[in-house]
């Protein structure tokens, strides 16, 4: 099991649970099981799709195109995302 270290705010890779509201990101890596990953992908959250964080907390609400997905905190702390702002600046 990979240990997820707490990232700083300017890091490119960050836990979804630590992303700021209105920030855009792409899923980089998840510690979810196969079924959870498949369902997320079927709901529109693929690895290479940019999403926006609408609300942090329980639930965490993200928007992929016009689809809004609610994710519980247990899931968001298992998803590492690549922040688009930091990525674009780099």
């Amino acid at each position, binding site marked *: 099991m990979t240990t997820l270290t707490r990232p700083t705010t300017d890091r490119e890779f960050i836990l979804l649970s630590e992303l700021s509201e209105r920030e855009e990101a792409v899923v980089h890596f998840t510690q979810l099981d196969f079924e959870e990953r498949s369902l997320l*992908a079927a709901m529109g959250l693929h690895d290479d799709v940019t999403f926006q964080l609408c609300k942090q*907390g329980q639930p965490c609400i993200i928007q992929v*195109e016009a689809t809004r997905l609610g994710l519980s905190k247990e899931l968001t702390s298992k998803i590492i995302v690549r922040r688009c702002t930091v990525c674009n600046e780099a």
Partner: protein
Amino acid sequence: MQKTKSQPKATSSVLLLGNPNVGKTTLFNRFCGLRSATSNFPGSTVEARIGTSSSGATKRTFTDLPGLYTLHASDDLSKVCRNALDGIDCNSPEAVLVVIDATNLRRNLTIVNEILHHGVPCVIALSMVDIAQKSGLTIDTKKFGEHLGCQVVGVHPRTGVGLPELHKALDNIQCTQVELPEFEKPKEVNNWANEIIASSVGGTLATGTFTDRLDKTFTHPILGLVVFAAVMAGLFWTIFTLATVPMDVVNLIFGHIGTAVGSVLPAGDIHDMVVDGVIAGIAGIVVFLPQICLLFFLIGLLEDTGYLARAAFVMDRLLRKFGLPGQSFVPFLSAHACAIPAIMAARIVPDRRDRIATILVAPFFSCSARLPVYVLLIGVLFIDQPLIGGLAFFGCYVLGALAALFTALLVRRTVIPGVSRPMMLELPTYKWPSIRTAVLNTIDRAWVFLKNAGTVILAIVIVLWWLSAYPKVTIPDSVHALRDQASVVATTDIVESERLLNQANSIEYTTQLSGSFAGQLGKFFQPVFAPLGYDWKLTVGVLTSFAAREVFVSTLAVLTAGDDNVENVGVIDKIEHAKRDNGERIFNVPTAASLLVFFVLAMQCLPTIAVTRRETGSWNWALLQLGYMTVLAWVASFITFTIVTMVMK
């Protein structure tokens, strides 16, 4: 891949498929209206609505299956949809109408690709075009269709805009001839979807801050709960307030029907069976139809607004503490209408262990079949106290919910140990609910309820009438004496004469009932229920209601129908004022309270047990559910009876 063009036929079957929340059912309702019915899909427990629609000389049968994200998941719904496309266990569809959301094209194209791979002729209905346009998107449907190799029609399911064009497209339907990406390779599918979107969609989707604000309120740890409590309170208050008048009307109508039919039929067994068996028994059920219709209608409206998904997250915080996932909230809400669709709705719970826990506790939530019993018993307990009666009603719902939660906790610590899976759920767009859709769904559900009342319950009440009418018992001498006395005083005191006749009829009726098969059955089992305060009539009612809860009221309606000692003409009034063999009221306060608790907690529904067995795949779970709920109900009722009796003293 097929390349042939199919010709329009006199009757053709069309399968509706698509993601959840894309307006599929609204479109189906627009096509079929009242010409539809809900039934299980052949060979499965997946519920489908089937209806017909005509356009010119062509009559089409539409089958609307529940929405799904992918055809290749391991759940039952995906399997049923795959089989339906391939014609396994059913006839092959002649066309598939795939409904997709114009504001979520990338995600929707995933399922379009999967469906097109099955080689069935397809038409794409592009819904929510108006929202996409308002949000800044323009879609070239012709170009979009060229990429997919099938016709794409923009529709507005609520207004019916685009329906003639859809019929036209279905007349000229064809299989796709384009090359499609392999659905097993999500990256390829995504690139393919991106290409289509890039070439046929213009503009950028604007996201609304209004939705953000609403979501923040509705899912807020405190505000969310306040809103949830207010919505639920409003829902149930509306049901119990608005349903009163139509319930009275139904009661009155059946009263008149009983009188009219009774005056036409000659006295005898046929007369008694029709008036006391069929009419009284059916009236005991149909009188609650207004409440059931209102519940389904309001749940339909609420679901359509998009609020229910947010409410599921509000409930997730609570439910997870008891080992259940937030998704369980949806089956639990359905359980307030009926436990059977609730148990079937538990399929949305992805984890099997979570699902079984949800199924086991769902019947604790007060279903509409319990409403007749609640109305009857609360009416007995709180006469002319509508406010306290309302609170008692609420208390029944709370008691059921608490029993469900603590049972879930017990289950997750014993037979199914573990914690629930974290929740992920699509939050549909907020919108004004469609009255038409809600009304059509309500009519559909009400029809299912009435069919049940007209078949199963009718059969039960006829059997009950027969059990209470046979064997024929010798009329006691006291009855003849009272009748003789009545005829003597008839010329001088008509009131006294009527009183004596009523007394004679009552004694005759009670003697007959007591000696009947029903009476013998009730007396045999009565010792089991005696500690709860039930006499043999109530025991018969409780026993028969193990088939279906609502039968309880019908049973008592049959058992008290001939009791002329009761002056009230309404079915409910008659039951409420029914007497025991010793002349005391059947429903005294401790008995009514005990019975109320029993009905809140007991598992009295054979179809639910059958559905639990089917959904869990094991009789063990079904029998555990039945045994646990019955024992819990008996113990809780005994405690209630003892406490209330002590307080009343």
